Structure formats: C-alpha cells, structure tokens
C-alpha cells in the first residue's frame, strides 16, 4: 500500500530489500496481510462494528481514487461524489433490472461506468486549472444527481432506488454484515493493489511530473492533457466502484446521499488523512466514519440543549479540519511520517 514515495526510504538496507522484491508482489503481500487482518477484526467484533468496518472500506477506496487525482495528479476535484453516485446507481439498476448478474459483475460495471464518466469529465476538464476545475467539478456534484428527477420512473426520483443485494454463498453461516465487510474489503484491496502499482509505475511518475510542472513535463515528452484525463479516469473508476460497494452494502441509491456536502467532505477527509499517499486514504476514511460517531456520542453524553447537541458534531469536524491544517499540513500520514523520522533520528543519534 505504500504508494507515493515522497520521503526517502528510511535506510539503505530497507531500500535495497524493497527493490529486491518486485513492487507487485510487495503490494500483493501487503494486501493479503490486510485482508487477513480485516477478517480477523470482523470475527472479533459485533455485527454493527462489521458494518462500520465495511463502511471504512468503501470510503478508503473513494479517497484513494481522489488521492490519485488530487494528490498525485494535482487536480482539485470537488465533485468526487458524482462518481460514487454513478457507481451506486449502476449497481442498483443492475440488481433491479438484471437480477441474474452476480454481484461481482455489477461491481465491475460500476467501476466501468464511473471510469467512463471520469473519462468524459477529464476530457472536459483537462484544460482547466485550480479554481476553475474546482468550480466545474462542484457544479457536477450539484447537477448530476438532479438527473434522477428528470427520469423519476427509471431512477426513482428523489426517493431513489431501494433493493436487497443477495451475494452470500449458500451454506456460509455468518452474519450478513460480516460477509459484506469481507466482500467490500476484498474488492477494495484488489483495487488498491492496482492503484499502488500505478502509483509506483511510469504512469504515476508522469502524473507527478505533470502536477509539479506542466511545462517541464511536456518538454520531457509527456502528453499533459492525456495524463490528466487518465488520472481522472482512474480516480472516477475508484469512485464508481466505491459507490457500487456502498449500494451493495446499504441496498440504496438515492440522490439525497450524494449531495455536494459528500464531495466536500471526501476532499476534506483526504487532506485530513494526508494527501500524498494511499495511507492517507485509510486515515481519512477512519476519520470520516469514526470521528462522526465519536462526536455524536460526545454530544449525547453531554446532555446539552437540543440545538447545541444537534450541531456539535459538525462544529467539531470543522474545528478538527482547521486544526489539522495548522499543526499537520500533510495530514495524519504526514504527521506519522514526521514522528517516524524523528524517532529514527533519535535512535541514530544514540548509536
């Protein structure tokens, strides 16, 4: 999962050791370990915690996709929720209208649909910079879900779609949320392995050089526009798949779940987690799911007057965003790295 090598490897020996193993195997090994951990964790926890673990899973994927676009590619998108919207509706429509398709086919379709949307968005947005791109993508997040109102019979209007996804193999007697957590994380980890490889590969290098300096990149023979479009495509495919997983998990696809607030909070969570690496996506997803839960518990426990209690979680989230930007501008992952480097230096000094 260690994707974007912004900082130098800790020591020469680990660097050499890393280089000795092909990155693909390294990532695959990490993914298998992660999957084992997730399965162990779900076995040790109750069904509702399983649901939360699964929720973290699809947010990790959504944020990882955004990390490719914004962290690696330098394109700021305020419309990532639109791709989740597309993925969720793809799965919902397929479950309802093509019930014989297995869930993995639905999920692949969600990723493809998201990718196509990303391709189109990327093509339209390739010439845009900074705030223009931000404004255009925000308009996408606001405008796209309204399509459900235009086709209320097919897309369910503002009520959206409601469905039950059957995926559990016969004879597997585990609580449904546990099975769902497994399937979500399996899918997410496969996608992350692909992303991590892309990040370390030629495409990742191209994206970073486009981000750092477009002119230099194009002088070096990199097709800037095409690279940006590919970044959008990959990012949106992840978003579509994440939305599809959400639909699979919750059995719903409705416009009210894909408001601009979702897109903004995804970006905020990514920055909170650390934008430069895929690890940041994990911290961001954990923050999205668990911070809110914690804030709600706090406001319940404090016995505050209703208007204060209702609004406290939002206020706390806002404060955390501001504080993190001030004290740890590279997010939680950046903070952890700095701590790690510090520890290493101290150890080195002692030696």
């Amino acid at each position, binding site marked *: 999962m260690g994707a974007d090598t912004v900082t130098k490897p800790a020591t020469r020996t680990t660097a050499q050791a890393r280089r000795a193993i092909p990155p693909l195997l390294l990532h695959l090994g990490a993914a298998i370990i992660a999957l084992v951990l997730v399965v162990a964790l779900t076995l040790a926890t109750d069904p509702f915690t399983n649901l939360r673990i699964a929720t973290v899973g699809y947010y990790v994927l959504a944020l990882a996709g955004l990390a490719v676009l*914004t962290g690696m590619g330098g394109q*700021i998108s305020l419309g990532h929720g639109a791709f989740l919207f597309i993925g969720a509706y793809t799965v919902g429509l397929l479950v309802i209208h093509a019930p014989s398709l297995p869930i993995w086919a639905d999920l692949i379709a969600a990723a493809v649909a998201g990718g196509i949307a990303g391709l189109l968005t990327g093509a*339209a*947005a390739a*010439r*845009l*910079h*900074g*705030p*223009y791109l*931000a*404004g*255009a993508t*925000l*308009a*996408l997040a*606001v*405008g*796209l879900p*309204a*399509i459900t*109102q*235009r086709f209320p019979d097919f897309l369910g209007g503002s009520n959206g779609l409601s469905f039950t996804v059957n995926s559990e193999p016969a004879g597997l007697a585990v609580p449904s949320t546990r099975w769902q957590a497994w399937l979500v994380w399996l899918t997410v980890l496969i996608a992350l392995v692909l992303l991590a490889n892309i990040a370390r590969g030629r495409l990742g290098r191209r994206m970073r050089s486009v981000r750092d*300096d*477009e*002119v230099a990149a194009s002088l070096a023979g990199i097709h800037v526009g095409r690279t940006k479009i590919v970044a959008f495509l990959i990012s949106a495919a992840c978003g579509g798949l994440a939305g599809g997983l959400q639909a699979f998990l919750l059995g719903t696809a409705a416009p009210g779940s894909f408001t*601009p607030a979702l897109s*903004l909070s995804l*970006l*905020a969570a990514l*920055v*909170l987690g650390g*934008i430069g690496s895929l690890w940041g996506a994990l911290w961001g997803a954990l923050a999205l799911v668990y911070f809110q839960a914690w804030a709600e518990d706090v406001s319940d426990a404090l016995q505050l007057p*209703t*208007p*204060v209690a*209702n*609004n*406290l979680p*939002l*206020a706390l*989230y*806002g*404060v*955390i*965003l*501001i504080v993190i*930007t*001030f004290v740890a*501008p590279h997010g939680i992952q950046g903070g952890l790295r700095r701590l790690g480097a510090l520890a290493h230096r101290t150890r080195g000094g002692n030696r």
Partner: protein
Amino acid sequence: MDRFLDLTLNGISSGAVYAALGLSLVIIYRATRVVNFAQPALALVAVYLAYAVNKATGNYWLAFAVALGAGVVMGAVVERVLIRPVQRKSELSAIIVTLGLLLVLQALVGMIWSNEPHAFPYAFDFRGRFSTNDAFAVGLVVVTASALLLLFKVTPIGLKMRASAFRPDVARLLGVRVGLMLTLGWALAAFVGSIAGMIATAPFLYPNVLDGVFVYALTAAVIGGLDNPIGTIIGGFVLGVGLSYVSGYLGPELVTMAALAILVVVLAVRPNGLFGTTIARRV
C-alpha cells in the same frame, strides 16, 4: 410574452444575488488566490446578527449596518488568523481551512438560533413583478460593484491592492504594506458578501439558506472569469436569467443540470471564463 417578462425579471433579481456573492469571491481570489468556501457562512453569520438586531430594535437599517460591519470585521479576522498562516502552504490548505470554517459557522448559528427557519424581512415592499425591493437589490449590487471597480482602477489604495495581489514582492519593495492590503481585500469581500446575504435571505432564514446561492455564485464567477469583477457581475445576471428561463420553460428539476451545462460549454470555449485572463493560471 407576459410570462417571458415575469421570468426575466425574476431572473434579474436572482442574478443580482449571484453577482454580489460571486463578486465577493472574486475580490478574495484576486487578493489572495483563494476560493473562499466560507464566504456563504460569513454572510450567514452577518445576516443572523442582523436578524437578532432587527428583532430586538425593530430597526431594519440598523440591522443592515450591523450586518455590513460584522462582515468587514469577520473578513479581516479570518484573513489574519486563519488564512495568512496557511495560504503559502498550498492551494488545498486554504480550501480546507475555509471548508472547516464553513462547517463551524453553520453549526454555530444552528446552536444559537436552532435549525428551524425564522422570518426575515425584505428591505422594501416586495410586492410587484419588479418590486421596490427588487429594484433596491439590483441597484445596490450595481452601485456596490461600480464603486468597487472605481476603487480598484482609480484610487491609490486600489492600485496598491492590485499590486499586492499580483506582484507582492515588487509591491513590498515599493513600500506597500502588502499584508494590510490583503486583509483589506478580505474585509471588502466579506462586506460585499454581507450585502449579498441580506438581499438573498429574505423571506426565511435558516443555516443552509445560502448553500444553493453559493454554488450559483461560484458558477457565475467561474463563467465570468475569477479574476474579473465585471465578468462575474455579467456572469451572475446571465446565469440568473438563464436559469429562470430553464425553470420556467423546461422544468425546475433541470436548473442544477442547466448550470452545469452552461459551465461546461463556457469553459470548453474559454478555460478561464468568458472574461478571465490567463494570469489566473498558476502552473
């Protein structure tokens, strides 16, 4: 024809709001290269303060003045305390700080005044196809915008502000207090934002009341060109009228999609907005 006129007038009133809030975004963008997502929240706080003052004293114009004053103070404070420390770090840091501020302020007004709607008055009689109040709103926006343009183009302080925004190093060498100019830019922007809030909010006030307005204001600014105040004003009115036609002739559910379509078409032809210059491009 009657209906066409109704829709046009309706669009002009909405357009004035988009133009005003868009203008406040542009002033900040020109000054500090930051898109201020907290702009609607700053305006919201100003309007809630006006609501409280109006309720306590019954004096609308005192309330209006309080809103504008609060806007100036909040704009300056936010720039000094929150934006300046992170502005040089990255474009994203500033965006995230303003997003965080948006959440905090919206939650704060909800805590104090609850999430339920409150009645909020118009400045003048609102009755009529193009009422006194509509005329006031449009007039106020046009006058404010013109005054700002004059300030930027003609006065020494405007020159200093522009210099600080575009060439801070040179400006500093010439003895301009760049920091002060940037703060002034934010204060001015929040002032204009408060005006937008005051004319956008009536008749009902609740914490999310300016969310939709903000999206269209940003759209207007992007259409017009984020560094071009005149372009943004034109963009605001064009968008207001255009969306009013879409809502009236094609259906209200298409309004947000129409805004997206307009944006895509404009940016496909002019990536920096209709009247934007390529200076906006920061590679």
